[in-house]
């Protein structure tokens, strides 16, 4: 077997499968979005940009767009803030390797949970009549709080679960990264009588700028996959208070009515927006982390 053939034989099957599946799904979505295909009947005809034009007049679509944007910002920012603060706290207070490892194990557990399981766990905690969260709030004379039924806080309550999973996971990564930093700049800052928080704010965290930006990117991509959590916890409700774009696309395309074409148009727009946004952020992130 020649070198060329080896390269071809190893790369071709994987590339073929991935490219085919990617082309079939994007091509399929594009094709259906200019038809008027419904889930139940195989007949359909060409309708041009009709579905897209209808989207632009759909209030529920713009609501979903707004909810998705809020979700993205809250979960990414929340995760990073929690991770940075907790990592510094662990780094400063726990010096013994054994304790540090135990804490890291504890913090890794939530992210491994299936989203469906995490959603159930927190629905149980949030339950207004028998949940631990409301019992705890009751101790302080607050409540009962309708965490998932109050449109004002429902999205935030779900975001807490996401941050619980990912913030603690990123904490572990940051704790490990803090351990690998060279000690010289930190010692120099200590000689200058810098306070602990000053050392972290001006020395260690700027040194970790690159990895933190990568983590933010990873989280931003993962936050797009919010469907499981929201679907199980609120199903998009109350009303449309927690209905993100993928949830709305699912509801209109598969659950209710099966308006495949309309949902396809929506997912094509979603695809375009995320691809453009991420290519842009990707470039900016690469430049900025240098």
């Amino acid at each position, binding site marked *: *077997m020649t070198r060329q053939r080896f390269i071809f034989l190893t790369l071709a099957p994987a590339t073929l499968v991935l490219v085919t599946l990617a082309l079939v799904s994007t091509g399929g*979505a594009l094709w259906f979005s200019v038809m008027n295909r419904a889930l139940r009947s195989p007949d359909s005809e060409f309708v041009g940009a009709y579905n897209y034009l209808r989207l632009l007049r759909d209030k529920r679509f713009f609501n979903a767009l707004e909810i998705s944007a809020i979700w993205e910002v809250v979960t990414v920012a929340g995760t990073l803030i929690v991770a940075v603060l907790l990592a510094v706290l662990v780094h400063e207070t726990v010096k013994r390797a054994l304790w540090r490892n135990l804490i*890291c194990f504890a913090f890794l557990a939530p992210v*491994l949970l299936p989203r469906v399981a995490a959603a159930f766990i927190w629905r149980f905690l949030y339950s207004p009549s028998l949940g631990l969260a409301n019992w705890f709030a009751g101790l302080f004379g607050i409540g009962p709080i309708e965490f998932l039924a109050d449109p004002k806080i429902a999205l935030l309550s779900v975001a807490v679960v996401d941050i619980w999973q990912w913030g603690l996971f990123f904490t572990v990564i940051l704790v490990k990264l803090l351990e690998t930093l060279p000690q010289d700049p930190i010692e120099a800052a200590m000689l200058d009588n810098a306070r602990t928080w000053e050392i972290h704010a001006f020395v260690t965290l700027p040194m970790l700028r690159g990895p933190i930006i*990568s983590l933010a990117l990873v989280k931003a991509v993962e936050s797009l996959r919010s*469907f499981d959590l929201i679907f199980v916890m609120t199903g998009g409700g109350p009303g449309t208070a927690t209905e993100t774009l993928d949830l709305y696309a*699912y509801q209109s395309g*598969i659950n209710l009515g099966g308006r495949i074409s309309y949902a396809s148009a*929506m997912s094509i727009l979603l695809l375009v927006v995320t691809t453009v946004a991420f290519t842009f952020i990707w470039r900016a992130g690469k430049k900025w982390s240098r």
Partner: protein
Amino acid sequence: MVSLILRNLARVTLAFLVLIALTPILWTTLGAFKRLRDIVTPVPKLFFSPTLENFATILGSPTIRDGLVNSVIVVAVAVGLGAVLGIPAAHTLARHARRWGDDAQFFVLSLRFMPPVAIAIPFIVIYLDLGIYDSLGGLILVYLVTTISTVIWLAVPAFERVPREIEEAAAMEGCREAEVFWRFSLPIAAPSLFGALVFTFVLVWNELLLALTLAAQNATLPVVAASITSLGKEVPWGVINAATVVLVLPPLVFIGLLMGLINSMVRAGGPKKG
């Protein structure tokens, strides 16, 4: 003195935070062993006479058992094929095709940008037309997007860490590319590759949306679990808790491996994720 108080305050805060991190999981596990009357109490009960009823209900229910079997089959085949196709491709990308490395990496990552609905909606129609809707094979095919791309994404850095000298020495001895890969690179990279496979396993095991849309009778465990709430009039919290525990156990077994993966990535100079 002040610093001593501050230090202890920080420790108490940290202990409290660890408690917050773990309480939800522990509380659910506890709930799985409770009878409904021990769950529906105004004041949460920490002590009660435990029961295995909930687990008996779960494992006795045919839908849940089928879901478990389907999950195991779908995940095993999808991750297996992902490894067979993805690992050799990753090795070639890392060693023989550096020119395309960056483009390939961006392509693989862009598959993760793809909203799952954008995959689910076209495929449900195509599967209905082809008559393979609600089949395990169809689900496995779609999962290959996730498994192959994740395996390549994580395995390329693993092969890059294999010392070049070993491969060059083997090539000097007259080993062909395939032999170098099979007898030297693969065993050396094996620990990191295993971590990559575990990560892929967790992703597919936890997947809900595609399974929910592309299967009906042959659903996987997350789908079955998500539908338990509508079993009866009264919400069977004990059963839900037990189902959650069953769903959580397999990924949780791998916690040590995930820790190892993080350690090796950090030591290689920052997460190579971005």
